[in-house]
């Protein structure tokens, strides 16, 4: 795990992390903003990054780990090139979000929380994204797709496969 997770983690990324840490060092409540930035830089929060953050901000690693595992936005696993998030808010749920999840699981051949073997897609379910008027909706990265039905799924996946 440790070895596999460190591919692609370059000195340049650690340099960026240092800059972020310096910016928040000594500032009360800086841990969560630093973790947000760190996840932007690395794509996820492996153990090495958490250690670096703990040392940099001078707080116990247990506290950093505690925060990382508490919030669903922080991921300790690398994610695919495209993260698909299906909204499971109430409006989406009553309009058939469960069928959308099923269609995605079938098309991608993975379960919610997993990443495809080729590293292209991760499938997640998300909390209400506030686009209830278009329910059911899903997001791919920052793009939002609304008024979905299961038959629209293959087309969406195809669009990102080429990117």
């Amino acid at each position, binding site marked *: 795990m440790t070895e596999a997770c460190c591919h692609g983690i370059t000195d340049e990324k650690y340099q960026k992390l240092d800059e972020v840490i310096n910016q928040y060092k000594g500032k009360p409540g800086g841990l969560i903003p630093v973790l947000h930035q760190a996840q932007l830089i690395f794509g996820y929060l492996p153990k090495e990054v958490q250690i670096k953050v703990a040392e940099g901000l001078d707080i116990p690693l247990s506290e950093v780990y*505690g925060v990382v595992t508490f919030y669903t936005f922080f991921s300790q696993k690398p994610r695919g090139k495209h993260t698909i998030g299906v909204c499971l808010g109430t*409006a989406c749920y009553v309009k058939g979000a469960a069928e959308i999840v099923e269609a995605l699981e079938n098309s991608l051949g993975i379960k919610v929380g997993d990443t495809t073997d080729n590293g292209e897609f991760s499938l997640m379910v998300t909390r209400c994204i506030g686009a*209830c008027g278009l329910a059911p909706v899903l997001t791919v990265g920052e793009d939002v797709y609304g008024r979905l039905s299961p038959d629209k799924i293959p087309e969406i996946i195809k669009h990102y496969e080429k990117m």
Partner: protein
Amino acid sequence: MNLYRAHVLICGGAGCLSSGCKAVLDKFNTELKAHNLQDEINVVETGCIGTCDLGPVMVVYPEGIFYQKVAPEDVTEIIEEHLIKGRYVTRLLYERPASGEQIPFYNEINFFRKQQRIALRNVGLINPEVIEEYIAQDGYLALGKVLSTYTPEQVIQVLKDSGLRGRGGAGFPTGLKWEFTKNAPGDQKYVICNADEGDPGAFMDRSVLEGDPHSVIEAMTIAGYAVGANQGYIYVRAEYPLAVQRLEDAIKKAHEFGMLGENIFGTGFSFDLEIRVGAGAFVCGEETALLASIEGKRGEPRPKPPFPASQGLWGKPTLINNVETFANIPVIINRGADWFKQIGTEKSKGTKVFALAGKVNNTGLVEVPMGTTLREVIFELGGGIPNHKRFKAAQTGGPSGGCLTEKDLDQPMDYESLVAAGSMMGSGGLIVMDEDNCMVDVARFFLEFTQDESCGKCTPCRVGTKRMLEILTKITQGKGEEKDLELLEELATSIKATALCGLGQSAPNPVLSTIRNFRDEYLAHIREKRCPAKVCRALLQYSISSELCKGCGLCARNCPENAISGEPKKPYTIDQEKCIKCGNCLDKCPFNAITLK
């Protein structure tokens, strides 16, 4: 400054963005240039206009013509027909759901006509990225007034007189909260805006932050002056990146204009704001958990008292209000408590924004006076239930609330009446359900949500909701027993009485409310192993109608379990033992021969 002969307001709210309004906007700008009209016609990207379902939408002034579902291909026609020749593009006009009658004017459409917009006054009307547009709408007037002519006590008195109550859910009188914070001893105090809008189905705070961020900034600065704080935080959830971006931009501009930061308006008062982005935890909407999260810790709540007003952020007195509450404040200062007090019911003053979603024709945001009935909201503003289905229930208050049914339709909605009806106002999410929604499944959905979001600190919530979820799942799978209902009610009562925070205490509400209103539906699942709404898969039986089946064999070829057999051109049959109820056959059958029981 340019004088334009027409203004085109294009909705840039989250819903319309997802429907592709950016492309429409770009096309409009290029086409106006091509027609050399860029100096005559002004295109404005606004916040959410409200009718998310009809997006991308736009309003063309001076006439106030409302166009819906506008595609980039329609833009040339709008310019050439409407803006040059003065003829409306009729095929893009709004149509009344029941009659199909076309209504060209924005303010004649029921959805807009029946609203009274105070918190949303600027949303959909101004460009949120241009501070001058906010100022032109009396923006920062209230702040100027307060800083130059009011004492902090006078500000608080206006709020107390207005009767404004917290719009985040609990409905606590805002003026009192400000007074407690002001009177709490301490030299360092904070003002926090709770923008962790986690209730699934509620998106009014998002809309205010994205469509009118300055109203929140102005109100927080007023609050800072009233309670004696010089630092504020806006805690926004990570799911709202556009809101964060617009807030950052607005804070920067307010600084440039001297309305935020040191020595505001030259009065000597200083106040600054910082944004904190959440990280995906529903419980952080609870105020003590939110404080922990801003402090950089796990967002776990703590018992109250002490209340944040006396011991809040880093132990200092802290005022926490919700986005919609703040958005009301500049208007109350400008127009006075007496004006505000006239709107609403005896105990609930002003308006409330509802997020209308689910099985309703016009989904989106509506702001109506307190005391408006559910029937008016769903059937007049919302245009009723689609596909001629029957109204079954409306869920208010999200995972902490309950459902309202047919008998509650004519009840004026305010804080007290909703509680009396077994639900609550909550943040204003209103999800409409029709006869195709199973209430047991909905209760299970909410429990799954609270179970998943339980922070785990206290046992009643951590373990209790898990047990409740297990029982509900069992019922939806047809394995329920009659004594389960009693057990559910018993668990619910003790969780309500003993959980640490509001989240846990209210988690059982959706279950209690559905058992009370839809006991028959629970009993059908338990006694007859039947789901009347045909939602709970384990209780459904797929069969093939021998009259409709043409024997094409498509169903058999798509059945993953080989549960369907038959000879070509003769009716096929399903082996119930093998059927896993995946629904493939139902989707594939070209003759509608698969029936569900």
